[in-house]
């Protein structure tokens, strides 16, 4: 792959992802906002591909664009009146305050982090490397991984138990 193509792809994807993220916030129609979120997720997946992280890209599509957005859509579906959902509420000012605080924190973090730039993007497929990192016998993360799965399972069973009618 040539450098020029990657650069062009990066800029297109970067502008799309930032633009769609802004659209999520600004668009009044809540359903369209969700669709822009999907677009945002997808362009982030594209960014992963330009970094040769294809496993991560596929997972990004599968989980974020595929599953999380479906969850959002379900929530919209259950919303009583979506047409008026874009109107401002009494929570507007507190929300603005919290968002501002978060933004300042993030900005602070970004400026204070020592970013390690890599000269050359890895060309090898990253799937095996990720598997090595996760499941390696000595320095892997098998235990946290399993704990996370158990946690999810418990949450799922709990949810089922909560909504079960009888």
């Amino acid at each position, binding site marked *: 792959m040539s450098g020029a193509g990657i650069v062009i792809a990066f800029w297109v994807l970067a502008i799309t992802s930032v633009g769609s993220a802004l659209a999520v916030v600004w668009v009044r129609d809540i359903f369209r906002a969700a669709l822009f979120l999907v677009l945002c997720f997808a362009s982030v997946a594209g960014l992963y591909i330009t970094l040769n992280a294809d496993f991560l890209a596929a997972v990004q599509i599968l989980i974020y664009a595929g599953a999380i957005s479906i969850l959002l859509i379900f929530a919209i579906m*259950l919303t*009583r009146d979506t047409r008026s959902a874009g109107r401002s509420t009494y929570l507007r000012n507190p929300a603005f305050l919290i968002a501002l605080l978060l933004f300042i924190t993030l900005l602070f973090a970004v400026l204070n982090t020592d970013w390690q730039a890599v000269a050359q993007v890895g060309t090898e497929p990253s799937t095996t490397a990720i598997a090595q990192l996760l499941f390696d016998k000595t320095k892997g993360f098998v235990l946290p991984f399993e704990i996370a799965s158990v946690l999810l399972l418990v949450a799922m069973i709990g949810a089922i138990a909560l*909504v079960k*009618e009888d």
Partner: protein
Amino acid sequence: MSFKTEPLVVNFGPQHPSTHGVFRMIVSLDGEVITDVEPVMGYLHRGVEKLAEERTYLQNIPFTDRLDYLASMSNNLAYVLAVEKLANIPVSPRAQYLRVIMAELQRIASHAMAVGSFLNDAGAFFTPLMYMFREREKVLDLFEMTCGQRLTYNYMRVGGLSHDIPPEFLPALGKFLDDMPGFIDEYEQLLSENEILLARTKGVGILPPQLAINASVSGPILRGSGVKWDLRKADPYCVYDRFDFDIPVGKAGDSYDRFWVRLQEMRQSVRIIQQAVAQLPQGEVRSQVPATLRPQAGEAYAHIEAPKGELGFYLVSDGSVAPYRFKIRSPSFINLTPLREMMVGYKVADAVIILGSLDIVLGEVDR
């Protein structure tokens, strides 16, 4: 834990693939569960009862063709029976037997359509419907041979039939009767043990016998609920008392039972026709009736077991050439009475199955 959800009101029809014509159900849904149903009909109302008051008794026969257009012979029969009762007109034995043969062939054709479109409603992609069309086609060929028509026959006359059957009719009928039981066996094998069909229809749209009787439903729906009531046995008309046949009844009163009863009735119809052909006498098929019939003032109610249920004609005469009152007791219309009770609590997808199992024809519902 319960959620407060917004009910969704959906209009099924008047233009919808599964309402079998222009019928409308206003269905309130909670998610996919039906909470209320209101049938709306009349989109095909042509005012037949009013029109018939302006025409002679003979001229009214074609109107009856257009009520339940899938069972015109039965409609003809019920109407001419009512006129004969009103004016005391005798009918020759041969005509009686031919009437029975035609009515039973009509029942096979109508039930074939009912079963086929019921399965179509269940979601089978037209295949059962096409198979059933194949069988109905044979009956229609027989009718075409008899009276030249394939849908609106206008074959029965007051005092008999419009004309005798052609000579090639009986051999063709014999072949049909030989083949038909095998086909019914095949359909029974293909359909009544299909796992998906069972899952979709068993326990769906249960109509308890008490409610069925109270709501005046008739025909396969009443028998599907386990009530052994068939006018061919209970109040024999024509020569039905001379034939040996069974009345199939359902057990649970669900959609499957109604479907099953129809399949079995096709079998019984074949039996009746076989006996009728064997006993068929020679002779005239039409007695002398004046073209402008003037029955004496009075009233008469004649009913038959049409494919869809009790089809009755209530005629009031004032001594003129036209009926003073021409009332049709249409089974499809009255069978819709317990629609709400049958549907509430089931899923949207069940609604079309239940409606399909009722087998309504809108020409008859709206008249």
